[in-house]
């Protein structure tokens, strides 16, 4: 078992194995399950992620009617071949948005680590899979790597917007995805940790301020931003760029910021974007006839 990123990386480095290996061994010990059972469980989650992305790319509308169809727009744009960046990048945005649109439509998703941030990790991994032509088995490993990073963040800080703001949801998801992308691309455990730290640092302080309390605005596009940030951090780590602040200190900062964040910015639909005139108009419309504070 490991309690910090530092412990995780040193265990992996000593064993000459990737982070996913340390996570699988630790989970086998903790749960008493076999590696095969664990892999089958994770493969089933991967299938849920793929199905959600596919469904979202075809276009879905949210339960409230406020959002939907943006993943489809992104794919149509990509197919026109005039995107400014490479296909991997736009595909990551599209898959992230697709997954979160399915979530907002009350469809089936896999929380990674939360439902509000469920698009980031599949967005990055499905796009990188296509780029690297990686088999599903490699994606299953990458998910264990992401899980190890999320496990440390969750136990040393928090992973709910109500407790620590969006930095604890999309921020944590982006850090997990950055590390997973690095492992998928063949980077070292140390590079995974650096990618995690860089991605997390970039989203520290992010408020959880959804309109009318719905997991839609700004959540869906934040998932795209979380995926983009994860790819940026992964590229930097793979290039050998290092974070000035060590990974575990970044997690401590996340925790401290989360604790000091005002209630209005922690999933209460009272501050930030939710408090703008447009945000309040939506609240009134969606909560019609009810007390809107």
């Amino acid at each position: 078992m490991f309690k910090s990123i530092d412990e995780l990386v040193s265990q992996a480095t000593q064993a000459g194995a990737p982070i996913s290996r340390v996570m699988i061994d630790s989970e086998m010990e903790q749960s008493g399950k076999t590696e095969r059972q664990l892999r089958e469980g994770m493969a089933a989650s991967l299938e849920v992620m793929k199905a959600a992305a596919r469904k979202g790319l075809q276009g879905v509308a949210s339960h409230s009617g406020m959002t939907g169809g943006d993943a489809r727009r992104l794919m149509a744009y990509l197919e026109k071949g005039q995107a400014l960046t490479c296909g991997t990048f736009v595909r990551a945005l599209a898959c992230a948005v697709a997954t979160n649109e399915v979530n907002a439509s009350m469809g089936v998703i896999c929380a990674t680590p939360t439902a509000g941030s469920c698009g980031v990790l599949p967005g990055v991994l499905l796009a990188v899979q296509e780029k690297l032509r990686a088999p599903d088995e490699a994606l299953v490993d990458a998910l264990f790597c992401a899980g190890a990073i999320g496990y440390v963040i969750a136990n040393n800080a928090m992973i709910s917007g109500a407790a620590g703001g969006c930095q604890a949801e999309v921020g944590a998801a982006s850090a997990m995805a950055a590390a997973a992308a690095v492992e998928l691309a063949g980077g070292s455990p140390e590079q995974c940790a650096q990618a995690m730290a860089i991605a997390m640092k970039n989203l520290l302080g992010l408020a959880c301020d959804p309109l009318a309390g719905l997991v839609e605005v700004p959540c869906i596009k934040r998932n795209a931003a979380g995926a983009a940030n994860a790819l940026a951090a992964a590229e930097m780590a793979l290039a050998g760029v290092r974070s000035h602040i060590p990974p575990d200190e970044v997690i401590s900062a996340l925790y401290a910021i989360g604790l000091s964040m005002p209630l209005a910015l922690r999933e209460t639909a009272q501050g930030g974007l939710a408090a703008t005139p447009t945000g309040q108009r939506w609240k009134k419309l969606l909560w019609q006839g009810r007390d809107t504070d």
Partner: protein
Amino acid sequence: MCIPCDDIYHASLTVLPLIKNHGSAGSAGSAISREGARYATLCPENAKGEAGMKYRSVFDIIGPVMIGPSSSHTAGAVRIGQLARKLFGQAPEKADFHFFGSFARTYRGHATDVAVLAGVLGLQADDPRIPEAYRLARASGLTFAFHEEAAIPVHPNTVTIRLAAAEAAITVTGISIGGGLVQISRVDGFDLRLTGEAPALLIFHRDAYGAIASVTRLLASAKINISHMEVSRARRGQDALMVIETDQPVNEEIVRLIQSQPHIFKTIKLEV
């Protein structure tokens, strides 16, 4: 109206900043503050170190597979509803839900009402029928109501559920800590910390010599290992609750034997 005011106070009116700013304030305030300070030690978001390893599996992070839109406000709410139903041990005729904090503010947007009701109906977090929980509840003859509470809870995602049927009733407070994980923090006025992920016994008993030993002796003789145990009591010599999480499931015969011991009022068996 359905939950004694006192219970709502204990469950929720524990403002952490209040402790910092007004710790030595007037008598009413400091009583609440003391309660708050005690709760702070139970609140997982404030628990660091060994006891703070609140997520134990990689599938707590990559998962659960669930119906959207929120792991804490939807999937976690389903789970709390399920646990309340399991603790009640029968189909309720009436259900009252009291939302606190972020739950009170945003439950409509996150479908927390639909989710917690679906849980009370026994649905799983990935059941596609969750969006229809209102209709399913009415069809089953369950009457239900939702209440928004103004009190600020220690944990922002708090719900107190009161289930009733004929003569029986139970009041359960649960918190949703993120990623779909939950904890039951209070049952019928007693503090506890129950995740529902291991088999558990909740034994209401008189705070008397030998009550606890009589139970642990029975479990030991049945080769059932205790993984976690805690005792909470109203006052010395009065009613108390012991919560025992076990590695092995406890069969009905053991439950009957426990129930027949002196000082034991009621035993609830929680299965995984």
